[in-house]
């Protein structure tokens, strides 16, 4: 057994309520580590041969909640959520912060694999090795804050009754879905702690399709034994010292970017990316700090950065709205992208999105898409059931967000996500609407544009990524570039927060890995072999796709049309993505990743990585 792992996983079939403990060979854990890497391996082994036919909302799909060996040890605890994505029809490793992963390991499990589908709404309550499938009809339909409140109370009472002499019971850690997940909205999240979410991938909808409202876990054991806990603690000290000395994320989180990414780098979505520059000082971080932040440092297990800040509106018509920060992504997507530039309106919409269990990034993208169609009179007031979807009208966007979460009226169509909604509406209106859909392979583009060339992604970053528009996993050349998804897979597989690695030497994470697991790993070995293997598996499943949509690299390894329109304003006015350069860069990336000119992994590449079965399965795509 490898150090740092609890050594077993829970597998729960909700159709027949079968619960069992399973193990993975050390070789698999050595190669795929945990989280995103292991999820990719499990999904390929179990579903790969029938991937195209697997309905993401069917009982055959799996919902994976996986920790990694570094979860709980490395500063900043997270858990990785995965499965067949109802957005990309591929695999997304979507991580969410909080104590869930730590509690799970302390309960004795490295992860949970959920299959099947319950007949009636249920939630799971795990206390160490006791696993219960419990009725959740009383919380079905409840929003995030109500769900957390009711389940925290219920589980603490259960613990108190069962263990009356223990003393006071702390809360269990809870992952849950909101109404959007229950209604299988493709932009629904798996959430924690009111405001934290595994957004990319749409796994809230997968959880909803299984009628699984929540999972609460209380582990009373220690974290698994580490190979060298003293060394791990020294490295933790080293990381913390660095973080404490660095003010940016600690002081403002990503909250200073809502102004800066627009004003300085011209790469912030504005009115559905019609522009990327603004100079709205009303959206400055000082305004958030001075007007709405009520808790300046908020963090999760072991985190020195605490980039979160709790925000609350105290006066006016949005009084009582509570959320975190909002962070940059939500400042952009539920702010500038909708023509909104005040902290109060931004907090109001973010709070609502949290409550409904929607992804702020992808729902913000969807709302912006709908508003541009309204602006262009493609979607009329009648189509929107009387709603005038004007830029800057937070209340109108709130009405539409609710319709989406509950699939009411036009919301039912939009609940399919920007890409699918664009296809359907385009058919209805008999025109191409995909040109207004700022997404890649079913996943909305994160709030970092590529036209100005001043932000961190490259022009091929979204088009060539195995996780589409996900801004936390981007394609970069060369493959070992520090921003590259081949590097990021390590954070998502060892499962900890990548926000605690800024400024520290790159090899430190592998020293940490060795201190916890006892295993030696180098950046070179990771990039050239293990991570590359994960990438090829993700690429294969993405291209196999189905059942509703399949991606063709020739068509879909491409930027949203919008990114070829020149920037309309700001210091980088006129800049755009050069098509010829994009083609060249893509060619270079394909070659480096071991893909043919058609974008499909080469036989030689796959065989070298020991993925002969993948080679066989994708032969038909070549």
């Amino acid at each position: 057994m490898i150090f740092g792992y609890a050594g077993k996983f829970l597998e729960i079939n909700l159709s027949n309520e079968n619960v069992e403990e399973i193990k993975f060979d050390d070789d698999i854990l050595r190669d795929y580590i945990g989280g995103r890497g292991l999820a990719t391996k499990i999904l390929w082994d179990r579903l790969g041969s029938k991937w195209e036919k697997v309905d993401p909302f069917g009982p055959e799909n799996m919902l994976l909640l996986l920790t990694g060996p570094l979860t709980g040890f490395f500063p900043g605890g997270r858990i990785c959520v995965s499965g067949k994505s109802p957005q990309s029809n591929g695999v997304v490793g979507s991580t969410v912060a909080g104590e869930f992963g730590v509690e799970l390991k302390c309960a004795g499990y490295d992860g949970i694999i959920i299959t099947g589908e319950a007949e009636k709404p249920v939630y799971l309550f795990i206390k160490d090795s006791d696993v219960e499938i419990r009725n959740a009809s009383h919380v079905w339909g409840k929003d995030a804050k109500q769900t957390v409140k009711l389940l925290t109370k219920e589980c603490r009472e259960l613990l108190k009754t069962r263990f009356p002499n223990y003393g006071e019971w702390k809360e269990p850690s809870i992952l849950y879905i909101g109404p959007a997940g229950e209604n299988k909205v493709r932009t629904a999240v798996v959430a924690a702690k009111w405001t934290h979410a595994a957004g990319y991938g749409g796994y809230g909808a997968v959880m909803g399709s299984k009628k699984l409202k929540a999972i609460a876990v209380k582990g009373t054991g220690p974290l698994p034994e580490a190979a060298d806990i003293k060394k791990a603690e020294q490295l933790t000290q080293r990381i913390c010292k660095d973080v404490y000395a660095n003010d940016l994320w600690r002081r403002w989180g990503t909250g200073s970017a809502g102004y800066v990414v627009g004003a300085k780098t011209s790469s912030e979505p504005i009115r559905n990316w019609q522009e990327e520059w603004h100079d709205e000082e009303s959206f400055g971080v000082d305004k958030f700090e001075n007007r709405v932040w009520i808790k300046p440092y908020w963090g999760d297990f072991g985190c020195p950065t605490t980039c979160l800040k709790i925000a609350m509106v105290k006066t006016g018509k949005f009084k009582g709205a509570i959320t975190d920060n909002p962070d940059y992504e939500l400042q952009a997507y539920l702010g500038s992208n909708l023509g909104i530039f005040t902290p109060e309106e931004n907090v109001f919409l973010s709070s609502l999105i949290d409550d409904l269990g929607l992804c702020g990034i992808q729902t913000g993208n969807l709302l912006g898409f709908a508003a541009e169609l309204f602006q262009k009179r493609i979607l009329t007031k009648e189509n929107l059931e009387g709603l005038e979807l004007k830029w800057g009208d937070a209340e109108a966007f709130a009405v539409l967000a609710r319709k989406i979460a509950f699939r009411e009226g036009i919301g039912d169509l939009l609940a399919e996500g920007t890409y699918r909604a664009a296809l359907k509406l385009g058919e209805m209106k008999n025109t191409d609407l995909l040109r207004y859909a700022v997404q890649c392979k079913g996943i909305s583009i994160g709030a970092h544009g590529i036209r100005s060339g001043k932000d961190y992604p490259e022009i091929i970053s979204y088009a060539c990524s195995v996780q589409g528009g996900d801004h936390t996993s981007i394609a970069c050349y060369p493959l070992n570039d520090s921003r590259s998804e081949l590097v990021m897979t390590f954070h998502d597989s060892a499962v900890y927060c990548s926000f605690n690695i800024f400024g520290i030497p790159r090899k430190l994470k592998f020293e940490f890995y060795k201190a916890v697991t006892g295993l030696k790993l180098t950046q070179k070995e990771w990039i050239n072999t293990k991570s590359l293997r994960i990438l090829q598996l993700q690429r294969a499943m993405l291209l196999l796709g189905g059942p509703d949509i399949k991606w063709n690299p020739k068509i879909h390894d491409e930027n949203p049309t919008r990114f070829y329109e020149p920037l309309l304003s700001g210091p980088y006015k006129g800049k755009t993505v050069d098509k010829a350069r994009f083609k060249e860069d893509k060619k270079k990336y394909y070659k480096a990743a071991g893909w043919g000119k058609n974008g499909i992994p080469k036989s030689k590449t796959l065989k070298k990585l020991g993925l002969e079965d993948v080679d066989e399965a994708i032969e038909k795509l070549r």
Partner: protein
Amino acid sequence: MTTEKEPTWIAREFSKCSGCRKCEIVCSLFHENRIWPEASRIRVFMLVPGLEFPHLCAQCQEYPCVESCPTEALSINHKTAAVSVDEEKCIGCGKCIDACPGRIPHMHPTKNYILICDLCNGNPQCVKVCQEGGWNVLKLVSRKDRPYKLYARTPDVVTRDLAVKIYGELGEEFL
């Protein structure tokens, strides 16, 4: 700085707690040589998101826990003024939990004895880590004749108070 000879008290300012739980990590490493949140003598409660706070012995001068112990497993360490637990003598009856106004002691999750903060023999690790991070929720001050027992409140009561302070009128709704 306080000297070893002078008993100290851990002053606490709950509303500043970020919820980083580093206090739980260092406490359990010090006492158990493992990262073990439930075996930590200081536990961060989060009954409502945003209302995290550390729950640990208030070191009150009355020591009702010591008095309640039927086996004399609890005693006062006169050097530090902390409560010492004799793990051999403790029978895990839980009387000290009921005697504590804050229901602060809790059982060791795998062994049959109670866990109460022992101030790490006068050099509390939780305070150190909280100060290093600049959170300053915990601070070591010299022990004086003050009503420390007011800080012995149950997690539910502390949560209720923090809810009002942080979320105002809305606070009640989340309890």
